[in-house]
């Protein structure tokens, strides 16, 4: 059964309990547990990671797993260890190919409901991989890019379900971009 066919249950535990109880009364053999959205969040080390940690609270009701290019980071939400992948950029093509295969394996094994990234290049790759697997995607472009979207952002804005910029004037120029706010 696909996820969308399950009864719609909110993330509020009380509401979920209530809905679960109702299902149990009408069909005693069916027990429905509240479904938590499984989210994979990806950011390169440094500024991208710091911007992601500042937004992580938005995913507090989700089951989060974090991926980064820096070693030994601590996840801002949940207690799963942060998965490390190789860092690559368009200057280091082979490193980028390696991170592509690592991200491919991670996404195939976790099968998240949603992939979120604040950049940079490995995050953009992850969004493409997610899209190929029919997983929903969110791109949040760094606050550093105030004059135009980053190259990674421009690469994913046609595939991401939601593409956020942190500068309203950029969102007003491009219908594919939206503005929700700024990390600081």
């Amino acid at each position, binding site marked *: 059964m696909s996820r*969308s066919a399950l009864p*719609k249950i*909110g*993330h509020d535990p009380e509401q979920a309990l209530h809905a679960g109880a109702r299902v149990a009364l009408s069909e005693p053999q069916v027990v429905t547990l509240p479904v938590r*959205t499984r*989210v994979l969040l990806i950011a390169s*080390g*440094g*500024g*991208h*990671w*710091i*911007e992601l*940690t*500042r*937004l992580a*609270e*938005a*995913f*507090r*009701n*989700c089951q989060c797993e974090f991926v980064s290019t*820096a*070693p*030994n*980071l*601590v996840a801002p939400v949940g207690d799963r260890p942060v998965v490390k992948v190789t*860092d690559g*950029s*368009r*200057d280091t093509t082979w490193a980028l190919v390696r991170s592509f295969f690592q991200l491919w394996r991670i996404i195939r094994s976790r099968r998240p*409901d*949603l992939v979120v990234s604040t950049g940079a290049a490995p995050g953009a790759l992850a969004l493409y991989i997610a899209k190929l697997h029919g997983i*929903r995607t*969110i791109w949040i472009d*760094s*606050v*550093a*890019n*105030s*004059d135009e979207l*980053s*190259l990674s952002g421009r690469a994913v804005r046609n595939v991401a*379900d*939601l593409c*956020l910029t942190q500068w309203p004037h950029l969102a007003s120029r491009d*219908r*594919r971009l939206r503005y*929700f*706010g*700024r*990390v*600081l």
Partner: protein
Amino acid sequence: MILVSVGTQLPFDRLIKAVDVWALERGRDDVVAQVGPSDYLPKAIDYFPFMEHERFFALQSRCAVMVSHAGMGSIITAMELGKPLIILARDHLRHEHRNAHQEDTLRQFAGYPGIHAARDEDEVMELLDRSATMTAGPQIDTSAPREFIDRLAEYVEQDMRRGRRSRLLDLLRRR
């Protein structure tokens, strides 16, 4: 302690050299620098290419003044810790970065309290001379503003309930 950082991906010898020359001239032995994949060997400052996030954060918490490239990691951390920050942007014409976004970042954040933007190496040294009396901006919260968090959380919750059809229509509307 004065802490210099240039990020992990690219070297930024122009900044490291400016701070090193200044430390040598002034006889300072309390300058520490994260230099990245650099070829320049500093003479007067303690340096290392890269450090794990947690250990580096401990250094950032201890230092009196931060000096860095115009990377968001340094800017956000300086604001969260309430430390004065001297920034020099990487110049893409000198191949210090892939594009000119650090100059844009510098322009956006130069006016913030506690953030001191330098146009060139000489200005970095001038600012370092004033660093003992430099003031920081007010410390900011470690989470993004409430409205941003709430809008994002609301989007995620609603998007997970939407069907394929409604998402396809939305995609077509945006084109």
